[in-house]
């Protein structure tokens, strides 16, 4: 991290602990860059002067101020850099260089801020966590505002024809605003749901007495045929709609499991069951019960109303609070019912015949309904009755705000969680691009890691290469059992450098002393390291073991600045190499 750059000299100095134990000399350090300017840099932004050190700005070489791009703004006569931009926003930009965190000032306009960031070459994704949410919210509002304007113009355009018929149908079913046909479907189904529900309701209204009868007859019985036809029509429409939805659903299994489809099924099943069982008189009682399920058709409206869906969801998520409410109410009911029962036991012709009977009184009293069909007559009963009604108000009033606040919290939280999830993805993508470490720092850190590799005579590899190598080692052990190469883990091993067909960022640094063997070191940075898997080349390079005095070392140089390109002969017979575990040889 750029923040660690000031401690780099210390980290390099700390390597003194490795020197005496390393048996090989350290690799050559990268050349020092002597920077000419050591004084303060003056940044004049529309008259307001800011000053900072050059290396503060150079922490982020990918931005305008950190790169040579700023030279375009240099004024010779006043020896300063002049920018004709907003000084208030520039303050935040300069603070970013100083602290590494970009903050978003809440009182600034979001588009002005964006423009400044774009000018100075800073990606907004690196805004610190403290301000990122606010920034994204403002951005989103801004975008929505622009989007609304654009949408109104674009809403006349047709959807592209790339969607298949099935997908268009599905979209039409799910979102009524996609096309006129979808809208028509939406209204038609809504109408028929309403008609069906009304019919169910109207069926039960008494319609006047039938001729020659005294008893009032419900409209359903009077106009049985009409209602039956209406019901049939509605059910036909619902069935067709359900079957169509099932056909065009992208995932039929998921569709069948969804709540809405279950409601659909439950809404139309009674009719079909009734058709099947209509002739059988024995089960007509059950048939009547089934009709109750027709009321479920009203839930089909939840496809038409987003609010209903949200309500359902929040009830589901507030289940624990509702449960608590129910539990506390039950407790109170049982307590008071018991008390009332025993209090009223003495009085004659009291309605409190048993404790369960007293439940009804307690519920009615606690919810302040007070029907009056059961009233206490004794004095004790009246006292406890009043206590019951007072406590009822409290018990019900207490959990309700909890549920309400939970509801608002859940609602906001779900909104925020969704927001943050979407933000996180783009944020991580931005983080990957930004904050390219100072080249100088990277070079020195790489050298430091090379020294460590030298000290321990092991090399850094990437995780997946490590796993591959583990597999290779077992294979190697298999293949060359007779070979003297792998006689002991610490003897000279010739890990023959596989010829890399893919391009790899291998940097090769040869020791300055020619007694050493050339080692191929792997950069531990995320650059691709590919030691190609053990292949037939191993067979031919097996003879190239430590017994051979001269091995031509090939040098693979990389475009990386740290790569030192040297070539030389390596002799393997040196006694210093009793420690060396790695012999890297590349056969050309």
């Amino acid at each position: 991290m750029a923040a660690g750059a000031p401690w780099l000299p210390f980290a390099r100095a700390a390597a003194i602990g490795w020197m005496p134990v390393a048996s090989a000399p350290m690799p050559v350090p990268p050349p020092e860059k002597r920077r000419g300017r050591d004084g303060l840099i003056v940044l004049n932004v529309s008259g307001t002067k800011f000053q900072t050190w050059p290396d503060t700005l150079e922490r982020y070489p990918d931005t305008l101020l950190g790169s040579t791009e700023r030279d375009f703004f240099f004024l010779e006569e006043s020896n300063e850099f002049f920018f004709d931009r907003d000084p208030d926003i520039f303050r935040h930009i300069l603070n970013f260089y100083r602290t590494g965190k970009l903050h978003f000032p809440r009182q600034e306009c979001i588009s002005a801020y964006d423009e400044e960031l774009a000018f100075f070459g800073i990606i907004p994704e690196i805004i610190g966590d403290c301000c990122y949410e606010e920034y994204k919210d403002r951005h989103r509002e801004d975008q929505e505002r622009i989007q609304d304007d654009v949408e109104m113009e674009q809403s006349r355009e047709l959807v592209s024809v790339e969607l298949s018929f099935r997908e268009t149908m599905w979209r039409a079913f799910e979102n009524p605003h996609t096309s006129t046909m979808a809208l028509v479907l939406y209204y038609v189904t809504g109408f028929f749901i309403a008609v069906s529900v009304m019919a169910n309701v109207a069926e039960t209204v008494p319609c006047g007495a039938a001729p020659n009868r005294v008893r009032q007859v419900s409209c359903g019985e009077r106009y049985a045929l009409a209602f039956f036809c209406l019901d049939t029509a509605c059910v036909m429409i619902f069935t067709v709609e359900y079957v169509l939805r099932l056909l065009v659903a992208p995932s039929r299994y998921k569709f069948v499991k969804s709540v809405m489809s279950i409601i659909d099924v439950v809404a139309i099943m009674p009719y079909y069951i009734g058709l099947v069982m209509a002739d059988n008189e024995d089960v007509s009682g059950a048939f009547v019960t089934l009709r109750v399920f027709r009321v479920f058709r009203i839930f089909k409206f939840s496809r038409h109303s987003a609010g209903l869906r949200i309500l359902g969801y929040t009830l589901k998520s507030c289940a624990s609070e509702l449960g608590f409410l129910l539990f506390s109410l039950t407790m109170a009911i049982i307590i008071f019912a018991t008390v009332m029962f025993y209090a009223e036991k003495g009085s004659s012709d009291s309605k409190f015949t048993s404790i369960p009977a007293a439940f009804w009184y307690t519920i009615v009293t606690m919810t302040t309904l007070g029907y009056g069909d059961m009233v206490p007559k004794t004095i004790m009963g009246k006292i406890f009755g009043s206590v019951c009604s007072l406590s009822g108000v409290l018990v019900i009033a207490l959990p309700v705000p909890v549920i309400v606040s939970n509801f608002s919290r859940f609602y906001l939280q779900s909104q925020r969680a969704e927001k943050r999830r979407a933000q996180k993805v783009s944020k991580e993508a931005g983080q990957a691009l930004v904050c390219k470490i100072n080249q100088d720092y990277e070079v020195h850190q790489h050298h430091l890691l090379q020294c460590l590799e030298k000290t321990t005579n092991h090399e850094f590899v990437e995780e997946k290469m490590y796993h591959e190598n583990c597999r290779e080692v077992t294979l190697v052990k298999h293949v060359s059992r007779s070979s003297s190469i792998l006689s002991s883990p610490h003897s000279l091993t010739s890990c023959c450098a596989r010829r890399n067909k893919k391009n790899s960022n291998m940097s090769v640094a040869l020791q300055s002393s020619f007694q050493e063997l050339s080692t191929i070191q792997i950069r531990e940075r995320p650059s691709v390291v590919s030691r190609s898997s053990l292949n037939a080349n191993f067979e031919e390079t097996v003879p190239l073991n430590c017994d051979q005095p001269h091995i031509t070392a090939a040098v693979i140089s990389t475009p990386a600045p740290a790569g030192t390109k040297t070539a030389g002969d390596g002799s393997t017979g040196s006694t210093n190499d009793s420690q060396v575990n790695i012999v890297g040889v590349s056969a050309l």
Partner: protein
Amino acid sequence: MKAKNRDQSLSDSRELDGSYDQLTDSVEDDFELSTVCHRPESMDKLQEQTKFTKKELQVLYRGFKNECPCGVVNEENFQHIYSQFFPQGDSSMYAHFLFEALDTNKNGSVSFEDFVFGLSIILRGTINDRLNWAFNLYDLNKDGCITKEEMLDIMKSIYDMMGKYTYPTMQDDAPREHVESFFQKMDRNKDGVVTVDEFIESCKKDENIMQSMQLFDNVI
């Protein structure tokens, strides 16, 4: 009466949010009472005592203060800073040894003076100074000689920094073997410990080590 009520309600609320520790009867504050601030000695004094120039001291201090605004580094911070350079391995043990070596007055924190004194020896000292410093680093109990156990700890900490993903695969006895060869080289009289004289003498005889020591000349 009022004060008592306030204390009572305060303790009640503390009990509720769990910050009240009934066992020790102490209250955990959310904030630290005061951050220990340490100001280094004047730059002139530091310049006399170390071999850095004024500009170098300025650069060093700026970096130091940036990372540790309170003027001292405690061990945790130190380990964190050092671990940034070795993402693949575990550098905490080696950082601990470094910390012990830098913290000359053993007060648990490294001030800027300690930091600069250490750096001055390593980066601007003579070969003898540097070797002495390295010996001091290895000698964990500061008794003037390095035993095999001390060296093994150091070696393990260095190998830990490599992490798991190395080529060839890290064997468990790699540090031990390395220690053996080190003692073979350094321990002249074969008495099982390496004294400072043996150490310096052996290092001076080793060309590789001498060459590596020259690395430090240009670090700052």
